[in-house]
């Protein structure tokens, strides 16, 4: 928000008349999508590209309506969301515990961190074929992969968050003769919350990306599967709809986290 106001404030300094000055931000934002849509419509109408490469927008729209009406898109989205929620919950809980343990105890850090860093080096996509051999291509595989996606950023950010708690706060705790538990609950965790939230945000993004990856490679339902299936049948309309659905879910999760974060920060301010 600050960026926008800064930029408008700045714009007022310039006396030059701007072409889009009178159009609202919303209307300006729509210019490009409308232009792309028009180009797309003209291209498919004139047959510049074959249907298999670029289906007509009307087709895609109709297909989207059908898929929404039949509940197909909702079903696949639900399947994907369920996997992400379970996997993310497991991965985030484990990551949070490891992060707290490593953050609080240097001994735990010394023992666990090198192995953890080595583990984190291997991209989530790398684990998929390995785990496919170990656990097959069932639900377990998807949950593990998604959990791994959330685990690494969660542990990392929790750890740095706790380590960066200002020593002054901790001193206050000592002065007040807080017990270890009080120290953790009243000082360390609240101070580490912004960093933990960064972990949650990255974790959720990674989980969602991992989900798409694992569903592309091995799945018989879910949005990723919809992509592969549409691709194999050369139904590009299905592919495009699945992509849009993936984008919308990603967007909603991002917004949801944003407002949760604001809520928590406000609560913190109210308390202080």
């Amino acid at each position, binding site marked *: 928000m600050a960026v926008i106001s800064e930029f408008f404030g700045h714009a007022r300094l310039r006396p030059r008349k701007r072409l*889009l000055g009178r159009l609202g931000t919303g209307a300006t934002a729509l210019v490009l999508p409308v232009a792309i849509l028009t180009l797309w419509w003209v291209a498919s109408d004139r047959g510049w590209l074959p249907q298999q490469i670029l289906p007509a927008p009307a087709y895609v729209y109709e297909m989207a309506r059908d898929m929404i009406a039949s509940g197909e898109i909702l079903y696949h989205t639900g399947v994907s969301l369920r996997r992400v929620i379970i996997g993310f919950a497991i991965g985030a809980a484990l990551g949070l515990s490891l992060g707290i343990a490593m953050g609080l105890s240097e001994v735990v850090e010394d023992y666990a961190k090198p192995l953890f860093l080595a583990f984190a080096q*291997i*991209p989530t996509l790398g*684990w998929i074929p*390995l785990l496919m051999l170990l656990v097959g291509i069932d639900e377990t595989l998807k949950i593990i992969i998604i959990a791994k996606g959330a685990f690494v950023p969660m542990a990392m950010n929790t750890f740095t968050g706790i380590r960066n708690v200002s020593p002054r706060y901790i001193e206050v705790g000592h002065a007040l003769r807080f017990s270890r538990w009080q120290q953790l609950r009243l000082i360390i965790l609240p101070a580490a919350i912004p960093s933990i939230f960064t972990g949650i945000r990255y974790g959720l993004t990674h989980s969602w*990306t991992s989900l798409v990856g694992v569903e592309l490679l091995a799945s018989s339902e879910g949005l990723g599967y919809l992509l592969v299936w549409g691709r194999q049948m050369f139904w590009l309309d299905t592919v495009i709809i699945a992509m849009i659905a993936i984008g919308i879910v*990603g*967007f909603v999760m991002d917004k949801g986290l944003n407002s949760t974060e604001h809520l928590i920060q406000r609560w913190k301010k109210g308390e202080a």
Partner: protein
Amino acid sequence: MAAATSQAVRFRRGITLPIFLLIAWEVSSRSGLADPRFLPSLENVALTAKRELIDNNLFGDLAYSLMRNLAGFLIGSALGVGFATLLALSRIADRLVMPTFNAVKQISLLAWIPLISVWFGFGEQAKIVFVALAAFIPIVLNTYDGMRAAPADLLEVGRALKFRPHQRALRIYIPSAMPAIATGVHLGLIYSWLATVGAEYFLAVGPGIGGLVIAGRERFDMAMVMVGVFILGLVGFSLNRLAYSLEAYLLRWRPRQVR
């Protein structure tokens, strides 16, 4: 507190778990506690690594993967910096394009693969396009943010000196966004490696490390998969290191920041 624990002790602690795991691995695989098909012995993995390295030209595969990665990364980052500079220079372009860009970036990266494979096939071209896209997005975002944060007084000096757009870009925006660009390049380097692996998994034509892993899985050759995954991690790690030194090099003119 930290100084009390010596480097040697920390090192000993650090290698304890990995060594313990390796021993557990070897013992359970030798004694038949775990099915050797799922957990091949270390010797077997080493032999496979040797076989792939020497007989099956693993370095060739690796070179292919890295070439793809580099080509895509260079294209993506050049386009990304150019695109972001354009948006920073022109408010109209910014307001026209940025909302759409922000919407499109929500689509998870891997979800582009099917569409790219329809448009560009399964060959080298499709892979490079995908890797370039992976590098493009973080570089645009970071460069754009960096340029938006260009100091207002510098911009005013630019106006007073009647800078032309290219001068504004080269003398104000790009230098002041350098730290942000470096972050973007760093992320782009990591993402493009992920994308290289992804592209080789899903567009599995031609040589490459990702193809090796997939082939290992299809042949149920756990040792081969492990070697491949290990190399994936190793390359990712080296790229990360490279990015750090690149960042340090790009920002060498800047006084050390005290954080």
